């Protein structure tokens, strides 16, 4: 009981702080300096129409490398934690109810479409909303649909690992190429900037974002597959 009172008091204090913050807050009517710089220079310098993509891939490209690394570490830790259940031939002996014919057929119909949508999202990252992270999550959703249809389905861990590491390696190599042939690490102007608004524009951004998409999709997929292959306790 005393604990609950302490929690409530703490939350009350936090709420008062929030209210004070909200009363003092006035929305900006103009872009601040950073935002104005990005808005005015992205189209000429980078050639991408989606400014958020330009920020994530080029202006703040190092942060993205860090983020992808954090995701990779997470996937690796999940795999390590649950690796006990991966002994071959022994996993999942219990009987599962059949998944109906309709769901099986429907998933065979929908999985290619979901993969196609994922590819569309990460290839068009510089023109439309979306990009590597979204596309990777959509690709992983396709894997999830397969898992939901047939939990005993075997996924090749090797294929996932190969896709993951090759795309990560290419990502870093492209970054280093930017160091030699353009302004700096992860500069996108190693390829021509192209015409604003067409698919082959914005230099290396579509390539880099596709690689990020493949990498993120492989990481999420490996998390899902590792989780679903654990033994029933």
């Amino acid at each position, binding site marked *: 009981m005393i604990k609950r009172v302490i929690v409530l008091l703490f939350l009350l204090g936090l*709420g008062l702080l929030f209210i004070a913050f909200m009363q003092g*807050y006035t929305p900006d*009517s103009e872009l*601040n300096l950073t935002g104005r710089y990005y808005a005015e220079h992205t189209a000429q310098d980078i050639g991408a129409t989606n400014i*958020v993509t330009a920020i*994530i891939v080029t202006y703040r490209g190092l942060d993205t490398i860090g983020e992808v690394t954090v995701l990779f570490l*997470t996937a690796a830790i999940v795999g390590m934690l649950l690796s006990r259940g991966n002994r071959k031939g022994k996993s999942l002996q219990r009987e599962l109810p059949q998944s109906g014919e309709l769901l099986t057929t429907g998933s065979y119909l929908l999985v290619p479409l979901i993969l196609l949508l994922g590819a569309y999202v990460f290839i068009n990252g510089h023109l439309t909303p979306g990009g590597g*992270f979204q596309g990777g999550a959509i690709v992983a959703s396709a894997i999830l649909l397969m898992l939901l249809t047939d939990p005993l389905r075997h996924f090749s861990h090797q294929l996932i690992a190969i896709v993951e590491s090759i795309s990560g390696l290419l990502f870093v190599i492209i970054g280093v190429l930017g160091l030699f042939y353009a302004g700096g690490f992860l500069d996108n102007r190693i390829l021509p900037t192209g015409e604003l608004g067409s698919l082959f524009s914005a230099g290396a951004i579509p390539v880099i974002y596709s690689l990020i998409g493949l990498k993120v999709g492989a990481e*999420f997929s490996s998390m899902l597959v590792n989780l679903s292959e654990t033994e029933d306790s």
Partner: protein
Amino acid sequence: MVQIAMATGFILILMGLYGALTNHNILRIIVSFSVANTGVNIILVAVGYMHGRTAPILNEAVPVAEAAARIIDPVPQALVLTAIVIGLGITTLMLAFAYKLYERKGTLDISKFSELKW
């Protein structure tokens, strides 16, 4: 409009913290954390919003010349985008640890885990 979203975000944070602090089940704590996480993201997006402006994507609707006067601040959006992806990774990690703990101890009640209490 901004005020509505900010209030919602703050209320979600408070509710999530309340749930995380008062529950005993680890899974429920993780659920409360995910609610609070969403609240933080909403506040960050609401801070970047400006009335009467549109999304930071340039096409026929927003020509390059008037971009600075028509779009909203793109920096908070880039921050939130990475935050959401990392949030999923963290949730997965927490769930994996919860599963492992359950396998070891056979319970998910945190008041039963007494090794680290003094």
